[in-house]
């Protein structure tokens, strides 16, 4: 019966289901875990945006942290300067700011290929956080902006912990954005993006406006980055340049590859891995009582190793592996077509 409904309704229903499940989950979790759940949320939307750009459209961005930076500072500035705005408006504007930045970046990048694009986006990730030093009064230099968001309705204050409320807000925003992304990916835009990725010449012969498509991919993807950054600022109550390192940008791409390039589901596995790698390595370090030099660097090392292993041995990522498994479960007879779908 679900198959008869238009995809947007299916996606909305699925999102609603997820939200209900998550709200239930937050009641079972302690505040610390709720913070992690919320963190997975904003990483998820950042990685999902990158999936659209890199996975669907084939444009490699090594600088997606720059769009998170823009989103985070947008929220921070709005909260501090325009306290009258509700948080949802701040987040919306962070998304818009990310999108506008992406539009500019996309327009500059549309003619670049492979390593040239990678180099330019990497320079963006390194260069952009430096603006905080340039405008110390407005952006507070390397200390960053700190603020408090009072978004929790008066009736709920005291009844539920603030991290739980924050997790709800984050996931509501993330799921809404994912519904938009899923519809785009399923629809005409998704096909166009893939056509451009697979063969630009063929796509343009088929009437696709290649440059415009690539810019659009950048725009959507950076808007997601902006939202992710805004949510991060909302969650942590700070926006500081130290959070938007090259390592962050590389981690996002790494999460995407780890999860699986070709689908939005991959972004979920990647985001969970991003958060829980840190958690697990902390646990391991504690159990083994490792020196801080080693324990501090363990997540990064593990991350790098996983990236290399995935590229060498499992190029389809976690989602690719799951899909293969699913096909095998559903159809015990091995079939050639199942893997191509």
């Amino acid at each position, binding site marked *: 019966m679900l198959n008869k409904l238009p995809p947007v309704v299916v996606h909305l229903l699925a999102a609603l289901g997820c939200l209900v499940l998550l709200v239930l989950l937050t009641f079972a979790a302690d505040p610390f875990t709720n913070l992690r759940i919320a963190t997975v949320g904003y990483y998820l939307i950042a990685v999902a945006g990158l999936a659209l750009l*890199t996975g669907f459209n*084939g444009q*490699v961005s*090594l600088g997606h942290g720059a769009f998170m930076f823009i989103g985070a500072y947008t929220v921070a500035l709005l909260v501090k300067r325009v306290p009258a705005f509700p948080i949802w408006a701040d987040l919306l504007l962070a998304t818009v700011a990310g999108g506008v930045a992406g539009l500019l970046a996309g327009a*500059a990048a549309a*003619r*670049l*290929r*492979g*390593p*040239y694009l*990678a*180099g*330019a986006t*990497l*320079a*963006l990730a*390194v*260069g*952009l956080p*430096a*603006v905080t*030093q*340039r405008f110390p009064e407005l952006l507070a230099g390397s200390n960053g902006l700190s603020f408090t968001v009072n978004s929790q309705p008066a009736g709920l204050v005291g009844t539920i912990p603030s991290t739980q409320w924050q997790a709800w807000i984050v996931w509501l925003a993330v799921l809404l954005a994912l519904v938009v992304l899923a519809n785009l990916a399923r629809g005409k835009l998704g096909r166009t993006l893939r056509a451009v990725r697979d063969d630009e010449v063929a796509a343009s012969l088929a009437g696709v406006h290649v440059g415009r498509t690539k810019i659009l991919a950048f725009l959507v993807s950076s808007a997601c980055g902006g939202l992710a950054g805004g949510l991060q600022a909302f969650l942590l109550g700070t926006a500081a340049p130290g959070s938007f390192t*090259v*390592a962050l940008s*590389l981690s996002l*791409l*790494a999460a995407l*590859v780890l999860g699986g*390039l070709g689908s939005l589901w991959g972004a979920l596995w990647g985001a969970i891995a991003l958060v829980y790698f840190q958690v697990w390595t902390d646990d391991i370090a504690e159990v083994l009582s490792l020196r801080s*030099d*080693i324990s*501090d*660097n*363990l997540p*990064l*090392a593990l*991350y*790098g*190793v*996983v*990236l*290399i292993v*995935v*590229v*060498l041995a499992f*190029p389809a990522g976690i989602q690719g592996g799951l899909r293969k498994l699913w096909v095998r479960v559903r159809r015990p007879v091995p079939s050639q077509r199942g893997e191509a779908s």
Partner: protein
Amino acid sequence: MTTFFNLTLAGLSSGAVFAALGLSLVIIYRATRVVNFAQPALALISSYVAYSVTKGTGSYWLGFAAAIVVGTVLGIAVERLLVRPLRNAPELSPIIATMGLLLVLQAVAGMIWSNEPHAFSYAFDFRGRFSAADLFAVLAVLVTATGVLLLFKFTSLGLRMRAAAFNPEVARLLGVRVGVMLTLGWGLAAAVGSLAGLLAVPPFISPTVLDEVFVFALTAAVLGGLDNPLGTIVGGLALGIGLSYVAGLLGPELVPLAALAILVSVLAVRPAGLFGRATARRV
């Protein structure tokens, strides 16, 4: 006027470092069509080795030599173990793999030598305007770059390396051992990269010390067209001088943004770099 002159000189020595690290990227890109994002990490490890050897023996030059040797060996190992298995993989794979290696090596450096910065000495006296250390940096890079260019242009080994890079299949048909040439290319590139690291690291070494230099080196290489060694050297020196002006006249915090602006504006006009050939060579 004096400021201008001073800034130019300062830019020359930092530009030489960008040129050298950029050159190491270009040697590899020419040979294997891979941008080696692990290059700064290879240079980092060899610089840390130099740090330890110098600390243990008291000799800067022993550390210097050890760094070049370790860098070369690392480059060869990376080509054999990581890049060669990916030679038929999609374009994104080597980017991810070398980036993974970057993360691993930076983390390993932090584990062994800690994330805290250590003092790292210059080769020569670094005080004053265009110091002996600056002069050494410029000369070392120019001599190395000239050597690399002469090797490519005038030796039979260089001819074989170029043939293996331009058309591996035809090179094989002419008796060239292409695999050996690629490995040598990675070793050579990593040696040049290690030199760049040794020049770029002082006064302090820490696991992320080369990140920014790497971005500038990549900018220099892209400006040069990614497969043009001479273009990269010119690009690196020009970028160093340009960024020195920005730092001196507008403020050092704008340097990374200025590099981005230069990169984007050059690529907007010439998507394959200033000296790059048309991209449609591989049909």
